[in-house]
């Protein structure tokens, strides 16, 4: 187990170090610009976003004891999409505190919907399954409003929105990262402090409560902090599909279910996984802006199937 862990971490470090140099050749006079203003910021963005999303996925799966739980389950992603769509379709071309409106709106949408669910989670007699249902309900509502907004969009807006919903990582310079980083940091650090409590959750909520875990507080903190991180990532990069679902499952299968391993390793593996996907996206269709979600799934699917097949044989 220990050797596996070390190998995994080494691979991750290597991927991150090499990634910025992977891609179509750079013309010598644009080299510095491409490397320092485009590739490195973008790699950093992938690091931050991949790590945050994966951690949130791992936390939600633990919290809901459900392998299908993900930010999209409790409406975070749907809220972000809704916000972004509203901004695209209804929004004026203004910026807010130097933020593009679309970013701000996605952030607000994600946080808004998740906080509704968190508010329900604060209830006294609420069971986890009730929360899952409430999450479905809010996702559904946000999804429906999004459909409504799309329905009333004209085609140029729709095309714009469509690309947004595929997720993207492109960055010029460091401004976005500087804005996202504190949000992501609060989310990641906050969630990691919940590791111990989530470990206790494994033996049932009531038992955990009797062992000193404030179940309601942990629920609210997990959902709130998770939503914060996801809202940030989605606001800047659109909904990057599957990372939050697939990375925790991979870590769980390879390194085990102990929360103390699962949560931090999800951050590390998720971060470098997205960096890898981004680098691969640069080479498979050089010159095109391949949506990174495509590569994520293309790499993740066979890996997950292999892990499932290996275990059950």
């Amino acid at each position: 187990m220990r050797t596996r862990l070390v190998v995994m971490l080494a691979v991750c470090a290597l991927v991150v170090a090499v990634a910025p140099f992977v891609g179509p050749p750079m013309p010598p006079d644009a080299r510095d610009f491409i490397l320092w203003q485009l590739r490195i910021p973008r790699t950093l963005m992938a690091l931050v976003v991949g790590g945050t999303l994966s951690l949130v996925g791992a936390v939600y799966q633990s919290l809901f004891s459900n392998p299908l739980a993900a930010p999209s389950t409790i409406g975070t992603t749907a809220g972000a999409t809704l916000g972004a769509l509203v901004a695209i379709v209804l929004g004026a071309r203004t910026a807010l505190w130097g933020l593009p409106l679309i970013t701000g709106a996605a952030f607000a949408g994600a946080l808004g919907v998740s906080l509704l669910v968190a508010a329900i989670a604060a209830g006294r007699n609420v069971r986890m399954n009730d929360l899952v249902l409430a999450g479905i309900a809010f996702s559904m509502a946000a999804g429906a409003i999004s459909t409504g907004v799309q329905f009333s969009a004209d085609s140029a807006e729709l095309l714009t929105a469509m690309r947004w919903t595929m997720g993207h990582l492109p960055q010029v310079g460091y401004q976005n990262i500087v804005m996202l980083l504190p949000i992501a940091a609060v989310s990641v650090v906050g969630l990691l402090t919940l590791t111990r409590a989530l470990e206790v959750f494994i033996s049932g909520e009531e038992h955990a409560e009797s062992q000193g875990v404030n179940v309601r507080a942990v629920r609210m903190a997990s959902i709130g902090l998770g939503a914060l991180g996801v809202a940030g990532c989605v606001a800047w990069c659109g909904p990057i599909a599957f990372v939050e679902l697939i990375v925790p499952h991979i870590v769980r299968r390879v390194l085990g279910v102990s929360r103390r391993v699962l949560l931090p390793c999800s951050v590390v593996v998720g971060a470098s996984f997205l960096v890898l996907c981004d680098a691969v996206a640069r080479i498979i269709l050089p010159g095109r802006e391949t949506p990174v979600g495509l590569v994520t799934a293309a790499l993740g699917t066979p890996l997950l199937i292999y892990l499932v097949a290996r275990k059950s044989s």
Partner: protein
Amino acid sequence: MTSLLEVSGATVRKGERALLEDVSLRVAPGDFVAVVGPNGAGKTTLMRVALGLQRPDAGRVTVNGRDVGALSPRERAAFLAWLPQRVQVSEPITALEHVAAARYRFKESHRRSEESALVALARVQAEALASRPITELSGGEQQRVAVAALLAQEAPLVLLDEPANFLDPAQQLELYALVGQMWRSGLGVLCITHDINVLAHAMRAGSEGRIRVLGLSKGRVAFESHYDAPDLGEHLGRVFSVRMRGVEVENRRVFVGMSLERGE
């Protein structure tokens, strides 16, 4: 510091049915209270009420005079440790991790937690299980690990819900010997059991009189007695609706359930 658990006049209703009616109870460190009663008498409900996991519809539960609902879960965990009737672990964490998790209430490093967890596992002779996934253990092995988790919590009052379930006779004996040790070392014990005889393993000669027995039946207190009371057999027979024959074996009184010989 005295850690006194006091349940007074607890009543729990569920729709029409009263699951618990006007039950009172005191457990202080050094006390040993055995709760007996037939299936569905409300024993587990009483324990959940005492732990603050279920709010009583009437009555109060206090720990050291403070309402149990007003304590933070961590404070409460510092007073009360619970062994549930059915522990359900949903994922294959190792036994060690499961026990270490029970030390949540302590603000300590993970290494410290694991050390203490190993000690606790050793006390139930389950060191060998430490690194095995808990979902792959046998019923009895799981129960032993659950007891280790209870020990690891180091609370002055322990609440045990049929701890001997799933355990083989040797393990039962060991377990009750361990509970006895804990008791004599000053802990308060509230123990639900169907088998009053196993309590014998918990005591040394002379301490019988200090084991209190609370009989529950249909949510009400049916009797309050002591382990050495001469009429305990009758009481037990009455709540369980069997004949309880007390026999002397090696200076110990053992109750043997006999059918009422209806129709024979």
